[in-house]
């Protein structure tokens, strides 16, 4: 009865070579046309659509035995889906993995860009749920494709301006649209707009994979990435009142953590590697001492 004894043998990096070639060709075109979404025949992956299948396919097409991989979700290496994707690549590639931003050659991410500036030998792979920045203004692919073709982005500006008229400011806080190299309006994936400036003139190559929506796009290194705004309402990023409670970092993105049922809360670095490094370097936030006491 059992003819499926070899069911569990998979190629290096899971994907078959033909699929890798297809994805690799799409990546090359994506790099040549910064910000343009290249359609690709996304495959079913062994994790659900919407859980990083696009990022996983891009990483799988790019990764080689000499790479060192870091996977983060919400800026953290230890969130369950990051752990799961990292374990997947360990299993199917056996490459070195790390939590250190500095040591990684490929960083796959969901929702954050690391705080530490990335270097020329690094590739940042984003998991993208909805690659089309115009999708919530126009649900039809046939229409949005025309808009990109004609560079017709008036609708996006109208939407942002309506925000200003209603609220006095732009009410988009994440997945904040950018314009790449003066041509394509692009969705930076649901990163907080805090991270948008890091995309501009990045030393690292940035690749974006949307598995369910079957799109790959890219920003080459040293490429102009401008967040959309208006002269009288310039783009600005979120700021936090207090520094990180653990490492005292300022100018970084913080997560709000609720400490008890009375609603007391603290703010800590969302980038766990950055926070750990700072603490190892001797920086202490106002709650880090207490955390140490609690452990003793």
């Amino acid at each position: 009865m059992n003819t499926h004894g070899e069911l569990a043998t998979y190629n290096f990096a899971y994907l078959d070579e033909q699929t890798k070639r297809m994805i690799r060709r799409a990546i090359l075109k994506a790099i040549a046309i910064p910000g343009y979404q290249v359609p690709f025949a996304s495959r079913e992956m062994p994790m659900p659509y919407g859980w990083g299948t696009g990022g996983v396919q891009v990483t799988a097409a790019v990764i080689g035995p000499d790479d060192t991989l870091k996977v983060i979700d919400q800026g953290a290496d230890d969130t369950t889906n990051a752990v799961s994707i990292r374990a997947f690549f360990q299993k199917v590639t056996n490459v070195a993995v790390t939590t250190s931003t500095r040591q990684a050659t490929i960083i796959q991410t969901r929702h954050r860009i690391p705080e530490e500036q990335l270097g020329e030998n690094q590739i940042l792979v984003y998991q993208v749920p909805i690659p089309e920045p115009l999708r919530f203004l126009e649900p039809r692919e046939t229409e949005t494709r025309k808009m990109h073709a004609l560079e017709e982005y008036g609708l996006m500006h109208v939407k942002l301006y309506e925000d200003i008229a209603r609220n006095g400011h732009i009410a988009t806080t994440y997945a904040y649209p950018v314009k790449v190299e003066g041509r394509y309006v692009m969705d930076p994936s649901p990163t907080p707009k805090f991270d948008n400036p890091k995309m501009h003139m990045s030393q690292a190559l940035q690749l974006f994979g949307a598995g369910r929506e079957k799109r790959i796009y890219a920003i080459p290194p040293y490429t102009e990435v401008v967040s959309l705004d208006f002269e009288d309402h310039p783009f600005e990023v979120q700021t936090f009142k207090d520094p990180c409670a653990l490492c005292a970092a300022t100018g970084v993105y913080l997560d709000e953590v609720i400490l008890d049922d009375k609603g007391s809360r603290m703010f800590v670095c969302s980038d766990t590697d950055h926070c750990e490094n700072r603490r190892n370097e001797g920086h202490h936030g106002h709650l880090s001492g207490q955390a140490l006491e609690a452990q003793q």
Partner: protein
Amino acid sequence: MLQAENTSVYLGGFVQPVFDAQTVFRQVMNAMARPGTITRFDALTTPPAPLISVTGSIAAALFDHDTSVWLEPAQASQPALTGWLTFNTSTKIVAQGFDADFAIVTDAGALPSLESFAQGTQEFPDRSTTIILQVESLDQGPRLVLEGPGIKEKAFISPSGLPDQFCEQCSANRQRFPRGVDLLLVSTQGLIGLPRTVKISRG
């Protein structure tokens, strides 16, 4: 490096297809992402002349039965060369540049007009030809200045053997953005990527 003449269409492909293809792709990707940088890899294939190993390796890494490739008429009539490509990659060979996903040009001085290749459409600019252009060298020719995405400020390259009107052709190609072709300059030294975004001037 010198290359052994390969007489069999069945020989001279990747020895370790999975890892060799990854190595080659990664260098092609780096070249495309950082125009002006010369990227290199070992001689992983031995295609029949006049193809050089770098060209053969790029073909082996990226071509398959879903792709089409245009060859110069002089090469398209060589069974050893077409046989090697089709046996090792399963690619289709097409007669018209505008039908081609890839083109291999071995006589760089006689590079056809870039406009004669697939440019993609305004809606699908990715459906355009990537041209693999074999040049005499990557660093012995007149200096060219590159600017654009992937380049910090300016990059300088000195390939030799390019046609006279190369800069003008590239400039016209850039004017068509987002449509346009992408080029890979290859020699035995490695490769330089020239995506359609790159601005080239004589320097």
